[in-house]
């Protein structure tokens, strides 16, 4: 399990990186924290001719707090978020989720942009960011574009990344003081990828009520108006049947799998309600 030979570049600015990424004469792969790509290289599942390491680019590690949001560079690590080096605008949601990602060694190196671009459905960021209404910014040969975090994932291990494009930042909206969130991950052992994720946000001041069923076979199931699942908002009024049929419609055909996912969402909602 050793990688094939490849060239390696570690540019220090974004334009240089974009030039390398845009080189369509050879197979180019971008590497950041290497927590997923590293093993894939070793197993020769990926055989690039050039590896572009983007972790020396200061702009991708920058964090900017705005009145309505925080903007994180793609190379911000899970540990940066866990340890509070990223200002928290989510009433604790992002640090709490960061703390539950894999193991500390992975969190020290793994990046939020890498996780989203690797597009593993069972990863944490895609589900919680979808619940929080986060957006990603991409830069490529034809300039910048922005899209919702959940739309960036096209399917399992497939991100909406066009030739020559790089994910440069993630923008997370600031929650109102009365907002509440819940996150519940079901996995078989500590540090393992999730088998089911439930994520939930209610922010009445911003008229937001979002629910996410994550760690499916593909993209997370995002309910942009979750009031339909909540009965009258009382604890215990969660409509399991509605959630179940929603999940079935979205392609979760296996009833046991569906049961676990619905349970994860219900528990996420309960957590939000007891906050």
């Amino acid at each position, binding site marked *: *399990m050793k990688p094939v*030979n490849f060239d390696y570049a570690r540019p220090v600015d974004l334009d240089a990186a974009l030039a390398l990424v845009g080189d369509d004469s050879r197979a180019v792969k971008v590497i950041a924290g290497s927590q997923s790509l590293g093993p894939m290289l070793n197993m020769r599942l990926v055989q690039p001719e050039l590896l572009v390491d983007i972790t020396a680019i200061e702009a991708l590690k920058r964090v900017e707090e705005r009145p309505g949001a925080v903007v994180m560079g793609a190379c911000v690590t899970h540990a940066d978020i866990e340890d509070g080096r990223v200002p928290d605008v989510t009433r604790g949601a992002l640090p709490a989720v960061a703390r539950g990602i894999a193991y500390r060694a992975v969190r020290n190196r793994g990046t939020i942009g890498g996780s989203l671009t690797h597009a593993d459905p069972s990863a944490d960021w895609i589900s919680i960011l979808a619940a929080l209404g986060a957006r990603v910014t991409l830069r490529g040969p034809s300039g910048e574009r922005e899209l919702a975090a959940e739309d960036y994932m096209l399917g399992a291990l497939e991100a909406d990344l066009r030739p020559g494009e790089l994910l440069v930042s993630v923008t997370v909206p600031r929650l109102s003081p009365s907002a509440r969130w819940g996150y519940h991950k*079901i996995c*078989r*052992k500590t540090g393992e990828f999730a088998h089911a994720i439930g994520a939930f946000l209610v922010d009445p001041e911003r008229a937001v009520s979002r629910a996410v069923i994550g760690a499916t076979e593909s993209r997370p199931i995002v309910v942009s108006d979750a009031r339909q699942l909540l009965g009258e908002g009382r604890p215990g009024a969660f409509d399991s049947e509605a959630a179940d049929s929603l999940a079935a419609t979205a392609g979760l055909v296996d009833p*046991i799998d569906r049961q*676990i996912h619905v*349970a994860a969402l219900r528990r996420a909602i309960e957590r939000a309600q007891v906050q």
Partner: protein
Amino acid sequence: MSGQGVGASLARKEDDRFLRGRGQFVGDIRLASMKDVAFVRSPLAHARVGEIRIPPEHRGNVFIAADLQGVKPIVAVSGLTGFKVSEQPVLAYEKVRQVGELIAMCVGRTRAEAEDIAASVEVDLDELPAVHDMLAARRPDTALLHEHWGDNVFLETFVDLNMEAAFDAPIKVTREISTARQSMAPMEGRGTVATWDHRLGQLVLYTGSQMPHIVRTGLAECLGLDQTQVRIVSPDVGGGFGYKGILLPEDICLGWLAQRCGHPVRWLEDRREHLTAGANCREHHYRITAYADRDGTLRGIDCEATVDSGAYSSYPFSACLEAAQVASILPGPYDFPSYRCRTWSVATNKCPILPYRGVARTGVCYALELVLDAVAREAGLEPYEVRMKNLVRPEQMPFDNITRKHFDSGDYPEALRRAIAHIDLDGIRARQQQPAPDGRLIGVGLAVYCEQGAHGTSVYAGWGIPMVPGHEQATARMTPDGGLELRVGVHSHGQSMETTLAQVAHEILGIPVDKIKLVHGDTEYTPYSTGSWGSRCAVMAGGAVATATKEIARLAKGIGAHLLQTDPEKVELANGAVYGPNGSVTLKEIAHTWYRRPQDLPASVDPRGLEATIGYKPVRDSGTFSYAAHVATVAVDPETGDIEILDYVIVEDGGKLINPMVVDGQIYGGFAQGIGTALYEEMNYDASGQPLASTFADYLLPGPTEVPAPRLDHMETLAPYTEFGVKGLGEGGAIAPPAAIGNAVNDALRPLGAELLHSPMTPRRVLEAIQAAKRKAPVPQKAFA
């Protein structure tokens, strides 16, 4: 004594290097000009091998079966009647019979380069239908692995001991129970460095091995070398568990190559090779019926057991050790009058099944203990009451059970009584009547087993496999400065023998443990031994060291008596010195005299000096029987299928404990592996024989957060036939957890009418069991009143 002898919880001598990261493993060996080997392996489970195309630029660095002239395949025959022989090719010819089977050996300056070369080799494979299901493998229309056999059965065994007498029993419960295929997972994988020593005319093979002498014998036979031409060095080993007892085709390939290529060669198994091509174990299927009276008295056990033995009979344990052992140990620690068991060792297109800590015992314990709980539910009794009715009683000891296993000693019911006393059973039963606020269901489950260990010649001669243990030898040798060297043919890789065998020698001679050095892991320096397996080292190597050091004591007393100017029969050895009527002389002075001042000794001195190699066998070699009762308390989440171990109690009797702390460590380690078997580990294959787990992301092992600290309690009933009364117990921790946890889960699921009979007990299987129960019986059963 000085607190270092038998019974002392001495800190481990080996920890100094291990805890500082200074262990020396095969992967740490660097030899000048060494090159790396990677293999072309079969991507298919069953196929005819056609043309193999090697790019011209790599011709000199790629070797295939046709190159290995004179190399014999690996053959591990069992002497049991009807056993069919398989030939495991060193490199595949004609057919491949498992994914990962070796097709070509590629040599590069680095492993990466060797993998590049391997990727450039093209192999034509004509795919054949794969046999992936051991039950289907016996059907007449199934593809055949070894065509000339006519079927896919290595061995069928049958025993009927008055089964008919049980058929009128009022309780009859039948269950289909199975354990998943696993891949045992030592932290260090396999690895081999091979080089030819021109000075000694010797192939030197460094490989992490539990059984260096057996590997030497097997390797020499396959390569056509004299055994004096082969030296096996087994350095530090990062976990064996059975996997490192096996002679691998890779070892033979490297041994062949090192004789010819003019430089050392190395192969280090990677984790994908380990999981997909190497370390398979444990896959059992039982159809088991228990007959009992209403009071829980067992009348008989009737069983059909199948073991998925994989494609080949591996060396030296063979393809049928598991199933043949199932038949002999299924009755467990119980006394009942009727027994029938039919077993099949079935060939499938999977890796050969290898013995893993506990060997057949883990599956047997799971099957028997689950069916005993089913008897308890049928009879309306507490599970422990059924055990109490049937456990062999202390006044019956020593006891020959229905399959003529000779239980040497112990109080099995007391172990169970103590285990139950450690938990609040009434409290748990009361708690089960109240719905938990989190919706989880509580269950308690137990399992009792006895573990035959250190079984010797009389047992293994019956199996007739390539390896039959005889007397275990040890060499003891005093050094001129009064220290002691011990040389043993077993290998210590977690058993802590560098400490515990020194404790044994200290017990006899009084030499401080830090002046005693254990030499092991090198065929050049140690007496022949079958090695470390079968919970035998404390009994066999411990007994051998005691025997050899007693001889040193006798010899030292002779010299000491001379120096004290008295007769040998008037002196005694104590605290590292020989005492006579009028004075004493230390062992250090005695050694100094023997080695450095022989002029001070009389002509009549015993010429053997201060060195002895002596063999040892227990008074009876039918094995020691350690035993234990395990009790698990679990919480099951009926919504997600999650299982949490709330409490775990182990009451264990290993006879005299040489080092109780080391014993605790052995139990903790085995317990962790037992949790893996119970809840996590599963090596699945698809219908085309493809292994579905190739990384530890797919093959789940319990980690620190999944292994709670068990509560241990020791009993110490001395074994009647062994030195100090020691019993083998190295495997025990891994035997009972699937059964105890399985029974606890079923106890928890009882209100839902669900029962789970397959390990690992994954969330999905829990939920499937609950759904099956809902379909079958909408009316929930009552929990224990």
